[in-house]
């Protein structure tokens, strides 16, 4: 197939400049995106809903705003939202049959913020069902394919976001990360992903999977793009008690600062025997770039980090078993045909509405919270979680940022890991720690192994997004991995 014309600039920053200079209108840019989405959909299945008409109307409004001198930095820039964010009047499916026909009556705070900044919504992106998965294969709407190799998964749960940005169907996309759901797909698709500090971005209107771990973020081409988009979606939200009242800096202001004197910690536990040799090599090459940029590199240890996967698979299912109880067929979402009684309504609505992975996690979570098991599982996991947080805190006493691989391997084949949930879960072994500790983390492309992208992970102390974004930006000024586009989508 031949890809439709490429977008006029590779990044949001570039497109924003083009719009500002009047090189093209938002309507033209949006049309170009919609054409690429239409072409990409059969091959990639990145979108669940495309809101073409509304997008063009919003683009026209953005152009009008610009004409009357009321344009901001992002006015008229098209983006797409992961289908976990509620969008008023637009289907919000969360990748599930349960919500296949659910039209949200309100906008998530993230959606509102980006709308207020002038961005134009192209549509809603495919994802693992209720964000539970690492391959985007659990979506009720079918798997998303990796633009670098359509036989491979894009990663998950934000697989649609990653594939759409990697194939340049959308210049940028929102995403969410509970255990790596932004960073792992960003790594597998060769683009940039950021999960901010827990509490930096409001969770209001973001359909909950595991409330103490969920965090909204971005999948973009570059760190600069992430810096541009993160501001408008961040900040305290009176509707989310866990969002933090802390001023939002201009993340672009510190881009380009020198890395001289920055201490980067290499987490020993990240370079374990599970890490693919070539992937490890690409990460080591990236470390050399940082040293050239003036950063000091030292090894640090987070001894409890290897416990993060079992800890996560107690805490996250526990919270999800409760969060998903509201999908009972009574008020919204899937409802079974002619229920015989209340129990039948519950059992069949939920039995039919949820997929296998969601059910597995609801059952796991129900089990670990049950009388007689709570202490052994849930409480113990919470204690380990504190130990992991303490490990990170200690590490940040010695360094400014941590660095390691994002995922143990490059993208794996569709269907390859479906038989064994544990192998699938191990894909998040390097990313889960940041969620358990609430830390900001990023994945940026650092090369290829066997023709597939490899991701480099940066983790920072709480609210160090600006420092982390700058470190990623400086690396991206020295390398062009983030600008590589799969040939079919060039």
């Amino acid at each position, binding site marked *: 197939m031949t890809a439709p014309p490429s977008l006029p600039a590779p990044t949001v920053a570039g497109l924003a400049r083009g719009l500002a200079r009047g090189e093209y209108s938002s309507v033209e840019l949006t049309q170009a995106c919609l054409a690429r989405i239409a072409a990409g959909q059969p091959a990639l299945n990145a979108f669940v809903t495309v809101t073409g008409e509304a997008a063009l109307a919003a683009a026209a409004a953005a152009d009008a705003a610009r004409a009357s001198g009321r344009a901001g930095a992002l006015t008229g820039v098209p983006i797409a939202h992961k289908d976990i964010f509620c969008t008023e009047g637009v289907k919000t499916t969360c990748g599930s049959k349960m919500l296949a026909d659910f039209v949200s009556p309100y906008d998530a705070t993230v959606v509102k913020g980006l709308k207020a900044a002038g961005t134009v919504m192209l549509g809603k992106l495919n994802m693992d069902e209720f964000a539970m998965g690492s391959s985007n294969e659990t979506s009720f709407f079918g798997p998303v394919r990796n633009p670098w190799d359509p036989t491979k998964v894009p990663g998950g749960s934000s697989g649609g976001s990653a594939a759409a940005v990697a194939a340049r169907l959308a210049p940028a996309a929102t995403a969410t990360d509970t255990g790596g759901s932004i960073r792992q797909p960003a790594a597998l698709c060769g683009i940039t992903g950021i999960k901010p500090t827990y509490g930096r971005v409001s969770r209001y209107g973001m359909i909950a999977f595991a409330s103490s771990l969920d965090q909204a973020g971005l999948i973009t081409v570059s760190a600069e793009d992430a810096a541009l988009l993160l501001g408008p979606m961040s900040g305290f939200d009176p509707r989310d008690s866990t969002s933090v009242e802390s001023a939002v800096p201009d993340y672009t202001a510190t881009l380009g600062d020198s890395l001289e004197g920055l201490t980067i910690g290499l987490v020993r536990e990240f370079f374990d025997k599970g890490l693919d040799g070539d992937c490890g090599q690409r990460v080591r090459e990236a470390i050399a770039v940082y040293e050239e940029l003036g950063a000091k590199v030292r090894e640090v240890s987070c001894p409890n980090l290897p416990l993060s996967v079992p800890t996560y698979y107690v805490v996250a299912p526990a919270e999800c078993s409760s969060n998903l109880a509201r999908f009972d067929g009574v008020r919204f979402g899937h409802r079974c045909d002619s229920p015989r009684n209340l129990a039948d309504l519950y059992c069949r609505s939920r039995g039919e509405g949820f997929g296998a992975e969601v059910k597995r996690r609801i059952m796991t979570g129900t089990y670990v*919270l049950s009388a007689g098991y709570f202490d052994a599982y*849930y409480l113990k996991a919470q204690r380990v979680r504190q130990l992991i947080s303490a490990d990170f805190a200690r590490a940040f006493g010695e360094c400014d940022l941590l660095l390691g691989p994002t995922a143990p391997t490059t993208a794996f084949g569709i269907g390859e890991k479906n038989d064994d949930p544990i192998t699938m879960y191990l894909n998040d072994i390097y990313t889960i720690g940041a969620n358990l500790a609430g830390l900001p983390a990023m994945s940026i492309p650092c090369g290829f192994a066997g023709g597939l992208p490899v991701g480099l992970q940066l983790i920072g102390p709480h609210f160090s997004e600006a420092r982390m974004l700058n470190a990623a930006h400086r690396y991206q000024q020295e390398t062009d991995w983030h600008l590589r586009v799969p040939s079919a989508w060039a």
Partner: protein
Amino acid sequence: MEWETVIGLEIHAQLATRSKIFSGSATAYGAEPNTQADLVDLGYPGVLPVLNGEAVRMAVRFGLAIGARIAPRSVFARKNYFYPDLPKGYQISQYELPIVAEGALEIVLDDGTRKRIGITRAHLEEDAGKSLHEGLPGVSGIDLNRAGTPLIEIVSEPDMRSAKEAVAYMKKVHTLVRYLEICDGNMQEGSFRCDANVSVRRKGAEKFGTRAEIKNLNSFRYVEKAINYEVERQIELIESGGKVVQETRLYDPDKGETRSMRSKEEANDYRYFPDPDLLPVALEPEVIESLRATLPELPDEKAARFVREHGLSEYDAGVLTASRELGAYYEDVVRRVGRDPKLCANWVMGDLAAFLNRDNLEVGQSKVDSAALAGLVTRIVDATISGKIAKEVFETMWDGGASADAVIEQKGLRQITDTGAIEAAIDEVMAKNPGQLADYRSGKDKLFGFFVGQVMKATGGKANPAQLNDLLKKKLAG
């Protein structure tokens, strides 16, 4: 065989906040179904709870009023179970770390002795909605107006030994929450209700018997009846060789009996865990102290003061402090009259209470306000009218809304204190009843009352009783 009853109560008091505990919806009672439920109350995908600070302040004030420990850090937990009127599939409550712990109240027993009832804890939680079945054949309707209404659940120690004690305790809590203005106390609307844990044991036994929990009692009368029924049921069961099982029971007020709802085995495993959507409630000592400063004079303090300052009996003081409004009404009457607080008390507890009761009114709705009653009592004290005439005046005031002076004037009820006028009336009565006069003078002292009555009748009841007494005695003596 002698048995001892052991009772503990879990009282649910709806907090009188304007909006719900985790959403901005109104809490007013009686609106059209589902008109006071927003997306948060409906448990829509993506919504989050935000704690209503006023509910926290109310809970703290309750805790301070019962001398409890206020937790510097309390935690909301999710109580997970499925029910159609529970939109999220869990109720947000407090479990391991409640906001109020270890308080107590005193009740007065029949013999006048005081008894301390321990309060284990009081925690904040949200109410569920309501399932409606009437007029909906084959289906159930769900009204979520009540979902998310703030409640404080007050859990007592198993300190009560009879249904009467349980009612006395519940009334005490009822009085207190209304004093604190944290609950309207309306039991018909379900703003104040309780679950009773009831067990029996042989007198002298140390171990508690197996308890049954009677759910959702929403009147003092039902509490008493349900407990008494349950106690009898349990004793009969044990005495006939059976065993009480731990279970939840429902009271049927029509049949006057309790019946099993679900056994311990069928009980839900609620899978409590801290709600990750809400931060722990942290209360600085200064915040707690500033709330302490907002506490009104509490019922026990007020009653003690009434005894001390107004010379009332403990019983009268207890009655007059049963509600903050009644106490305020009484004190206003006393302040305006300026003397004889006992007479003021008699009027408030007597005629006023009787009329309020008859017309089913609260003291705040009284047709004779405290200023008007003070006006009436003042006229008794200054001998303008007698106590007996005052009752007539009061009734007219109640029905017509006029002041005591206006009624006295209009009806010519001013007391006759003119010696000449009273003497004239006496002379007339003596002249009309020569036989009785002769009998009296021959030693039938009891006829004195007859003459008082006749003179009163002749004066339309207006003769000053003390003067009449003196003058009559002299005249009859000849």
